[in-house]
């Protein structure tokens, strides 16, 4: 569906060195990135600011031309066959609106119908589906400028999906939203994915988005891919500690010597293990040697996992 092979992209940066003189420097935004996304996948594409996320999405959607490497989206070169590519993809920029500010959503959708040459019957069916799924009737008669952020984002989604694209790019779709609205947008994305079987690629800084909706996560840092896999594997791979709390039957449990950060509080003992470093057997050993009343394992916050990953590549 989406194929990138050895894609690189640099920007020219003018650096002032004097009153009139300036030096041109090349800043590498994306370096030798290869990846492949199959039909119907939901992929979270994450990385710190300036890591090359947006650059990659812009190359995939035909806005930018890569310096090196090739990109195929549905078998089409997104830059040179921009118009053809435009029919296959829907794009939502979380920080920009494509809706007509002073008019109702219906007006924008109607204009898009004309731009994409959507046949009447198809448009009617699609529109009624989107109205139901995205609960558009709630604000159907209001101009966009009167909508809340959550409502507007539903409108943006409708505009990005009205031409039934097979791929949806979302650039920070939940930015600036409160927890409840974020949650509803996530649910909607999942619902649309189920209904349409659409391929979704989303960038975000909120890892909750990725955890909740993505089956696969790709991490980019300093222009290079540093992880590609499931969220569970991401956790495993990163050397972050999990905290284990066990309530033992006795006040003097038998503990292996290698346990780290042990804190005792009567029958309650807290320690840390690191799965990535093969410490899981230690936990098993601790449990098998004692009578255990209760056990709680708290995973490292996913932010820590990601931070480790980002920093790992930078070194």
């Amino acid at each position, binding site marked *: 569906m989406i194929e990138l092979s050895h894609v690189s992209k640099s920007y020219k940066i003018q650096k002032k060195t004097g009153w009139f003189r300036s030096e041109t420097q090349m800043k590498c935004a994306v370096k030798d990135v290869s990846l492949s996304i199959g039909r119907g996948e939901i992929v979270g594409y994450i990385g710190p600011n300036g890591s090359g996320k*947006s650059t990659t999405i*812009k190359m995939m959607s035909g806005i930018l031309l890569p310096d090196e490497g090739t990109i195929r989206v549905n078998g089409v070169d997104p830059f040179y066959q921009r118009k053809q590519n435009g029919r296959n993809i829907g794009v939502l920029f979380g920080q920009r609106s*494509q809706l007509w500010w*002073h008019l109702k959503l219906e007006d924008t959708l109607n204009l898009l119908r004309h731009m*994409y040459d959507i046949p009447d019957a198809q448009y009617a069916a699609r529109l009624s589906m989107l109205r139901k799924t995205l609960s558009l009737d709630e604000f159907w008669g209001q101009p966009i400028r009167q909508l809340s952020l959550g409502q507007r984002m539903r409108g943006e989604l409708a505009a990005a999906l009205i031409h039934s694209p097979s791929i949806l790019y979302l650039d920070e779709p939940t930015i600036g939203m409160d927890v409840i609205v974020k949650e509803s947008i996530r649910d909607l994305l999942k619902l649309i994915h189920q209904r349409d079987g659409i391929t979704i690629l989303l960038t975000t800084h909120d890892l909750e988005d990725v955890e909740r909706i993505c089956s696969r996560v790709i991490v980019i840092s300093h222009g290079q891919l540093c992880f590609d896999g499931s969220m569970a594997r991401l956790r495993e791979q990163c050397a972050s500690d999990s905290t284990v709390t066990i309530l033992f039957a006795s006040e003097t449990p038998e503990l292996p010597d290698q346990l780290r950060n042990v804190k005792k509080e009567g029958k309650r003992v807290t320690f840390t293990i690191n799965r990535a470093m093969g410490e899981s057997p230690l936990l098993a050993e601790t449990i098998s040697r004692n009578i255990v009343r209760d056990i709680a394992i708290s995973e490292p916050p996913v932010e820590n996992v990601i931070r480790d990953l980002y920093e790992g590549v930078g070194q």
Partner: protein
Amino acid sequence: MKRLKWFFKLCSMSLSMCWRGYISYMGWSALVHGIGLMIGYLGEYVVLYTMIRNFNTLGGFSGLEVCFLYALGLTTYALGNVHTRKFWRMDELVLRGRLDMYLVRPVSPLLQLFTEDLQVGYLSHLILGVGSMLLVKHMTGLTWSAVQWLLFVYALLAGGMLMGGISLLLTPLSFWWGESGAVTWLVRHDVRYAIRYPVTIYPKLLRGLLLVLPYAFVNYYPCLYLLNKSDSPFAAGYVLLTLPVGILVNIVFVLFWRVGLKRYSSAGG
């Protein structure tokens, strides 16, 4: 043919949306704004007319004739800039990456930019401009042949095309400089003040400039013919020349835009 029908449908949809957006946003103040603009421009006529009455004539033009010249400039400006608003803030598009949105749709980005912000408020310019030209014609007792009427309409449309082209011509500079507002403002707006007077009053160098940035074709040459100021048998040719010059300027703009768009690297993130 189908493509042409599609194009006109797009234009009419956009026009309707821009109009409704304008009314919804401005409400009754749209009317007040329109009337206010007209009063402002009427003031300009009074100043021009009074000034030239003191000189008797200016570059061979009487006070009323200069008003006609001015009105032709105003009308073609309004006609020609109906679709150029998005380009006045090219820095928004280029530096902030707002252009991205137009590049992911299966329609030419230029066409989208042209139709997204049509200046329906220019209706007041048109009413005033055409109205005052007809008034001057009546007051000076000018009589037009059928051909002259035809060429009057032609001069408005072709002049509009030329004015629009001139407004757009330098905007792709933004792709290199990021900001081009100052230069394009100068070309679009300030030079417009120069062509309210007959170009013959200017020193040669300046006159040359008004020919190079082909402002003289917008109103001066058409006026020579429409006001019967020229004895030349080729006077009608001056008017006819406006269209080819207009087309040329627009073609140069489109080519310049295409080169710029290739450079467009959008706002990184």
